[in-house]
C-alpha cells in the first residue's frame, strides 16, 4: 500500500537536514525534492536484529531493501544486509 507520506508533498517543500535518519524520521527529502521512505514489504535477509523493508523513491519501488535511510553530507544512503549504499541521482539507483 502506498501511503500519502511516501509521495512528494504538495505543500511542504524542504530538504532534509544532514544526520537525519528514517526511522525515526518518517521520510527523507533530497535537493531535487525526491522523497525516500521505507515501504511495508519485509526483507528476508535483513541485518541481524533488525527489520528491513523495501525502499520507495517518490512512492515507487527502487529494488532495494534497507533497515534505514540516512542523509549524510548531502547524500542519501541506505543500510541493508550488504552495508551502506548511496543514491545516485543521475542513474536513479543506489550503488
Amino acid at each position, binding site marked *: *500500500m502506498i*501511503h*500519502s*507520506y511516501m509521495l512528494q*508533498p*504538495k*505543500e*511542504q*517543500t*524542504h530538504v*532534509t537536514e544532514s544526520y*537525519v535518519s*528514517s*526511522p*525515526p*524520521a*518518517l*521520510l*527523507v527529502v533530497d535537493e531535487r525534492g525526491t522523497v525516500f521512505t*521505507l515501504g*511495508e514489504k519485509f526483507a528476508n535477509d535483513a541485518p541481524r*536484529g*533488525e*527489520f528491513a*523493508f523495501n525502499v520507495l523513491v517518490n512512492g515507487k519501488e527502487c529494488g532495494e531493501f534497507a533497515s534505514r535511510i540516512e542523509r549524510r553530507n548531502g547524500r542519501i544512503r541506505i543500510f541493508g544486509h550488504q552495508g551502506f549504499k548511496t543514491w545516485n541521482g543521475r542513474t536513479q539507483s543506489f550503488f
Partner: protein
Amino acid sequence: MLNATVTGAVDLAQVFVNPGVTASLEFLRAWCSQAANATSAQQSVALRTQVTAFPTLTSATPRKLKLLDPASAITGGTAGAAGTAGVNASVAGAGAKSEVIDDNFNVLNGWLWVPTPRDTIIMNASAASGFGLYFPVQPGTLTSWSAGMTYAELG
C-alpha cells in the same frame, strides 16, 4: 487519518485501536507527519495504552494490506470501545493512560516507529485496554496532520 485538522488540546489520541475478543493485535508500525508548512518545530509523540474510559474519536475502518485477507476483527467506531478503531480524538477520555513509547520529532521530518522484531507491541484479545498514538502536547500547527498504525491480527 490524512491531512486532518487536529483538536487543540493535550493528551489526545490521533490513532486509537481497542482489541476485541477474537484476535490479539501485534503493532508493527506507527507514523505521523504534517504538511501544513515548512516551519521547523519540535513535537512530542507517545504510544500509550488507555483503559476504562476511552477517547471520543472519528470512526476509522482499518484497511487491508493484503486484499485477500479476511475482514478485520476491528471495525470503525467513535467511542474507543473494544473491537473498534478511530482517529483524531476530540475528547481525551478520563481513562488512565500508560506510556509505552515516548519520543519527540521535528515536524519537518515526521515520525516513524518501526520496532525491531523483539520490540513489537502486542495487545491481547479482551485486553480491556486500547492502544494509540498520542500527542502529549498541542502541536504548534493544527492543520494537515496525517497519522496511522499498522498491526497484524493474531490467531
